[in-house]
């Protein structure tokens, strides 16, 4: 489903050159739950961004559904991000001015096709899926951290993407809320959504199907974990 060939990525400033990824070969199959682990600055988030087409590799190629995306134009990449991927960020990144329901509707807005009523219905369903059906008219700052992350997950899944990309989704939450979010991601994966998650938490990683470990921008280990 997602295949990376010899992907490298270097960040350059005026004086400093930082190798973020080096010769990454990775294949994520449909329905997998992959946890990416490694120390801070090892390139996990960069790799997730490359997979999610938020960032372009300096070298190598990315294939989505068997098609290389290097030649895609802005509009094609945006369409792929919209239909293929759902993003969950460590700091939630909800839009503070919009109500919960409007935040969740966002991906549908850029998809086109669905009218306002249909968008609302789908957003409501996504919020009910994450247990926040009663908080639709709240604003993000009226919710706890765990609830905000649930809203972020609802926003990520509202368009029924094939792949959920989660960048340390429990990083800003306490252990109980973190466990709830993990349960939610596992449930989504059980329903067929492919999940790629960056995490520092060994226990969380052990609950998913596969762990890949990075060090200094390179893949150092692929291991199959035991799902909880």
């Amino acid at each position, binding site marked *: 489903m997602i295949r990376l060939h010899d992907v490298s990525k270097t960040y350059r400033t005026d004086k400093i050159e930082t190798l973020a990824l080096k010769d990454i070969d990775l294949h994520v199959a449909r329905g997998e739950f992959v946890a990416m682990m490694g120390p801070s600055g090892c390139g996990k988030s960069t790799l997730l961004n490359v997979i999610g087409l938020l960032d372009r590799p300096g070298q190598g190629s990315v294939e989505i559904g068997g098609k290389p995306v290097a030649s895609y134009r802005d509009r094609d990449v*945006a*369409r792929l991000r*919209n239909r293929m991927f759902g993003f969950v960020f460590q700091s939630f990144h909800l839009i503070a001015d919009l109500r919960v329901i*409007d935040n969740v509707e966002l991906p549908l807005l850029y998809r086109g096709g669905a009218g306002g009523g249909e968008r609302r219905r789908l957003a409501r369903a996504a919020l009910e899926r994450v247990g926040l059906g009663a908080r639709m008219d709240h604003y993000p700052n009226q919710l706890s951290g765990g609830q905000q992350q649930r809203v972020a997950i609802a926003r990520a899944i509202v368009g029924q993407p094939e792949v959920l990309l989660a960048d340390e989704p429990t990083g800003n939450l306490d252990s109980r809320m973190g466990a709830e979010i993990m349960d939610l991601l596992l449930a989504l994966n059980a329903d067929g959504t492919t999940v790629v998650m960056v995490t520092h938490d060994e226990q969380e990683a052990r609950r998913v199907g596969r762990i890949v470990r990075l060090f200094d921008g390179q893949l150092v280990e692929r291991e199959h974990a035991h799902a909880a």
Partner: protein
Amino acid sequence: MLRNYVLTAWKVFMRRKLFTAISLLCIVITLVVLMVTAALLEAAVHPAGVEGRSDRFLQVYGIRSEGPGGHRMTTTLLGYKTIARYLKPLKTPERVAAITLPRQVSVYQAEHASEASLRNVDADYWKIMDFRLLAGRLPDADDDRTGRMVCVLNASTARRLFPGGAPVGQRIEVDGRTLQVIGVVEDAAHINAFADVWAPLATQPSTAYQNELRGNFAALLLARDPADLPAIQREVAHAATTFVSEDPRELPTTWFWADSKLDVYARVLLNNQGRPDSGAARLLALVGGAMLLFMLLPALNLVNLNMGRILERSAEIGVRKAFGATSRQLAAQLVVENVLLCAAGGLIGLACTALVLRWFEAAQLIPYLQVGVDFAVFGWGMLFALVFGLLSGVLPAWAMSRLDPVHALKGAA
């Protein structure tokens, strides 16, 4: 999508009220200056009211003669003899009026002296212009023929000279001649109408004007139909080629042109008396360019404010990109936000423009000025708002659309 753009715009405006207020103030001040200018130009070039027939009359304001090789040149107003000999006999116009430009004269009434602006006109003038008669009657051809010593006052002058009394039938001394007031008309500020006192040509102290090819006169030529105007212009241009100057050897070549109001301004301002083209298109381009330049500085200021707003919203932009917004959609969003802000500024600006114009009228900075916010000014106002919105929104929108989503999500745009 548009509904969402508007909703987002509203949220953004409300989020930073001071910022929104400063932006609005910047827009409103700019648009008020532009709209007041547009209203004054509109009143000058497309006057209604007393010059409401200006869509079917032309005016000849200048006469230029040149010597061989262009070594000697003279540009003046018309003399009455030029109008009588070359313009009055033209076949296409329905009427040709001879008018002097207004000049300051002394007026004595009941031993009170004052200054007034006097214009000498013939009877055709009153048929071409559309003055609203408030009392008495207007001079006619009979007054011209018999040389009656009569005059017409405008409403302000009538009130000033005869406070509380009826001016019609009274006598006043104007420029050393005693004239009987036969009518009172409304005040008018337009180029062919402006005066305090109007008197027939024959009331002038001397008849020397009848023998002058150059002098203090202009001619108004009324067409039967607006479609006749080009024919009149051709006829006038041809008449100029038959003009015989006072000194045909020294000044063998002469031009005078029948111009629309805009052409009159353009020809004088751009010194085009020697060419058929008045330069109106160039004048309009210059005015348009000046207005655009005037908009540029506040637009740059707004660009700067918008860039700051983008930096503040970079995380939101990153999120929108991550969830499938294209660069074009994001750019459109900011442009819509900006155009909405400018449209709001335009509406507030219109209200302020109406107040400023009312103050202009009340303060009489331009005597007898009557100008207000009509549909044309409203249209100009909205056009200015749109252009201003695009000018100040496109560059930030382009910058916004170019944001790298990863950096934007980190809030490091």
